């Protein structure tokens, strides 16, 4: 952490939301999100959408407090909504109007005067990569184009913060990459802070400055991407047989290796680690087929942490 962290764009304190019927969507969530591109990750049902609705001031929290850009979500909801752009997860476009008409109208609804709304609608659609197509009815668009219109309508009001809920939903791999690049560009070049909610961590970690992981309404971990990856130098070892043997042998020699999908991950301490692995494999006479340095995927870190937590939870009951 730098000595003077920039003011948080989102801050929640012990935020709890219990729906009627005792369904707890958020459970004492305390998190602070710095400016930049932030990934909000969690499985489906982890509480991402509930959090977004509270931030938009559409749902009152049961307990706790949430602030967006310094405004309280309950008392300052009107102000917050003039500063936010929101892209919902689901389909939200009428098929029988053109993208230009639609985004212009929503620009008006964001409080833009008529001519400004028209100009900004054209610009937003151009920024998301819709040119001549914007005069066609939305019903004729591909999924990728529709996602772009959804992003354009979030952008039209010149928000200070964008909330994007599963922006790559329904896109093919090329479309996903294009959408992620677009989001990264908006974050970097347009100077707009972005929160991207996704259940696909591997995807959004590519474009995020920081990550917030929630699970069952609670904070799993929130940190910058670099701090996630700092301690994650690993050596991936693959052998066609004798994986368990090798793991045991490595443990004897002081290396705590873990198995992930037929790959042995060994924490990389220095050049010495390579020698130990080589000796082990040679001594056991195993067919080595891969030995490579790997940056640990953030996903694995989360998984570890979750496993730890699950274990801690289990212990008292045992």
């Amino acid at each position, binding site marked *: 952490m730098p000595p003077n962290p920039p003011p948080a764009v989102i801050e929640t304190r012990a935020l709890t939301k219990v729906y009627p019927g005792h369904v707890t969507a958020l459970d004492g969530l305390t998190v602070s999100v710095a400016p930049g591109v932030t990934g909000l990750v969690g499985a489906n049902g982890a509480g991402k959408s509930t959090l977004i*609705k509270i931030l*938009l001031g*559409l*749902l009152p929290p049961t307990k706790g407090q949430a602030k967006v850009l310094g405004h309280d979500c309950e008392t300052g909801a*009107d102000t917050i*909504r*003039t500063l*936010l752009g*929101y892209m*919902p997860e*689901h*389909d*939200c*476009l*009428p*098929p*029988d109007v053109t993208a230009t*008409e639609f985004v212009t*109208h*929503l620009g*008006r*609804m*964001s*409080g*833009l*005067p008529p001519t*400004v709304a028209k100009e*900004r609608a054209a*610009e937003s659609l151009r*920024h998301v990569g819709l040119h001549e197509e914007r005069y066609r009815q939305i019903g004729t668009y591909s999924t990728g184009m529709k996602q772009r219109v959804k992003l354009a*309508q979030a952008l039209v*009001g*010149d928000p200070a913060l964008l909330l994007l809920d599963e922006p790559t939903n329904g896109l093919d791999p090329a479309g996903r990459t294009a959408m992620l690049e677009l989001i990264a560009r*908006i974050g970097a*070049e*347009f*100077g707009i802070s972005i929160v991207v909610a996704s259940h696909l961590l591997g995807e959004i970690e590519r474009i995020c400055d920081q990550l917030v992981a929630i699970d069952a309404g609670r904070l799993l971990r929130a940190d910058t991407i670099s701090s996630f990856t700092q301690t994650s130098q690993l050596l991936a070892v693959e052998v066609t047989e004798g994986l368990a043997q090798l793991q045991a042998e490595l443990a004897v020699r002081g290396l705590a290796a873990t198995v992930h999908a037929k790959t042995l991950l060994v924490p990389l301490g220095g050049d010495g680690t390579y020698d130990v692995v080589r000796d082990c494999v040679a001594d056991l006479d195993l067919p080595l087929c891969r030995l490579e340095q790997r940056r640990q995927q953030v996903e694995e870190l989360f998984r570890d942490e979750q496993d730890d937590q699950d274990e801690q939870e289990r212990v008292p009951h045992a």
Partner: protein
Amino acid sequence: MPDSPQAAGVIHDLGYRGYDGPRLARSQIVRALTWHSFRSAFGIGRGAKAKIIPVLAFIAICLPAVINAFAVARGDSRLYSYDVYAVTLRVVVVTLFIAAQAPELVSRDLRSRVLPLYFCRPLRPGDYPLAKYLALTAALLLLLEVPLLILYAGTIASAHGGAAVWAQTRALIPGLGVGLMWAVLMAAIGLVLACRSGRRAYATGIVAISCFLTWSLSLLLLGAEGGMNATSTGARLAGLFSPFTILDGTRMWLGGTSPGEVADPGHFGPLYGALAVVLLAASLGGLAARYRKVSQA
């Protein structure tokens, strides 16, 4: 930032520009949404197909007034009274209009799930139904009052002397009031029924069937009780079963004398008035509740 016209020809990416200019207040946004909805109530800004029903409704309801203008010019007296102007035609046209256009205003947005995009903007959940209600009321007002104005214009064009014009004007004013009453209540009923369903055909069906069925029920009951001129309690109460007859009973309670859709309510008049108010309040309450729920979903 390279945004001069010359640069635009070469550099396609002008870079992002923010907006620091003035923004509309919430009330102005509601006004913009009302205007947008008012236009779409007549199919303006939409395809040609969307204009068919509003235009037909408008022509149909203006026709008697136009015919009146010719009749008056030939020397006949005015064919329709202002306060019960072609009342059966009016019931049919208003029902068709709200059955077609109330879903146009609310069901489309429900169907395409565009509402979260409104509610994440400065609008509050109550503002959206308010704008839709004002828009449909204004559209109905136009549909109900323009024929009266044509009727008035056609009549005074052949009137002789200031006294005759003044008499027409005095007759017109309560007629305009009745039109306002119809618009205010029927817009609320149309919207609260239409917003039950995102399927446009269903919404249209719900509105049309509720209006026509209740109206037929009231007319049937009235017929069974001896018709328009009956003075039995049953006849006086028969109009309480449909919004159109409630409106007509309220008109008579407020002093209207032209024979309309219902028997003279007599001392049951206040009941008609009260029921009209209750119906309006219930419809508007239902509308607001519906959108409070939608905004949180």
